[in-house]
């Protein structure tokens, strides 16, 4: 999993039928020190997240598990909202 | 599957019980010409490989299909020791 900031939401009318009713959010992955890294991506939300919140998300097929037994074609999913991050002393050189 | 060179060993006393008695090796993925690429990874050795050898690593969920690894929490296993690599066209 990775930390991310929710940047916005995505509206798509025409989509895979099994995505109907699912909330899609644009997220930016974060490092432990809160800096951005990598590219922003779209993730399906199963934690009730909103724009501006810090969340954690799972990549891969596991992103579809919260919707079992349906298997929406998703590869990233928000599975928790972060209350607090405690990083005593992040390693230098994080990219 | 990927090619990699075994560069070291890992010792971990406290670990998932399903990993007890498995040998863990540090490997550096490489291209067919032997040039290292990508990040180091740790793989379970199922073929008695050693440091300095070029090996075949299966990663992802398929790693659990390696001998004796069913239901083990692993994502990379060494499943072969490479004798030779021939690449057409050279470089």
């Amino acid at each position: 999993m990775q930390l991310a900031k929710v940047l916005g939401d995505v509206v798509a009318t025409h989509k895979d039928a099994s995505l109907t009713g699912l909330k899609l959010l644009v997220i930016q992955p974060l490092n432990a020190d809160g800096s951005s890294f990598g590219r922003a991506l779209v993730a399906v939300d199963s934690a009730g997240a909103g724009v501006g919140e810090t969340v954690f998300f799972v990549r891969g097929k596991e992103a579809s598990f919260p919707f079992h037994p349906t298997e929406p074609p998703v590869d990233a999913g928000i599975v928790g909202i972060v209350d607090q991050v405690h990083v005593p002393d992040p390693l230098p050189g994080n990219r | 599957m990927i090619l990699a060179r075994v560069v070291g060993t890992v010792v971990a006393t406290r670990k998932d019980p399903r990993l007890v008695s498995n040998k863990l090796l540090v490997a550096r993925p490489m291209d067919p010409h032997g040039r290292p690429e990508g990040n180091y990874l740790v793989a379970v050795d199922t073929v008695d490989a050693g440091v300095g050898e070029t090996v075949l690593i299966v990663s992802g969920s398929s790693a659990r299909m390696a001998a004796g690894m069913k239901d083990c929490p692993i994502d990379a296993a060494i499943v072969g020791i490479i004798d030779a690599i021939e690449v057409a066209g050279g470089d």
Partner: protein
Amino acid sequence: MQIARVVGTVVATQKHGSFVGAKLLLVQPVAPDDTPRGGTLLAVDGVGAGVHERVLIVIEGRAAGEAVGRKGAPVDAAIIGIIDSVDVEA
């Protein structure tokens, strides 16, 4: 699997039900010489690791679910060992 350094903890009240009771740690993948490699990841702790420890992480969904005894959980990384030593040729 990858070698990583535990750099922090994460508290999340609102999360998928399968995470309840699981410890989430922030880990930084590192090379054998401890230089950071890539971005920070979040992993479920299956062995009782703590901040600053060097650990072995698995980055694959089903393996991570197995590690924490939560089959079908939406997790993709788990800590499966605490590293005592890494011995790498020069």
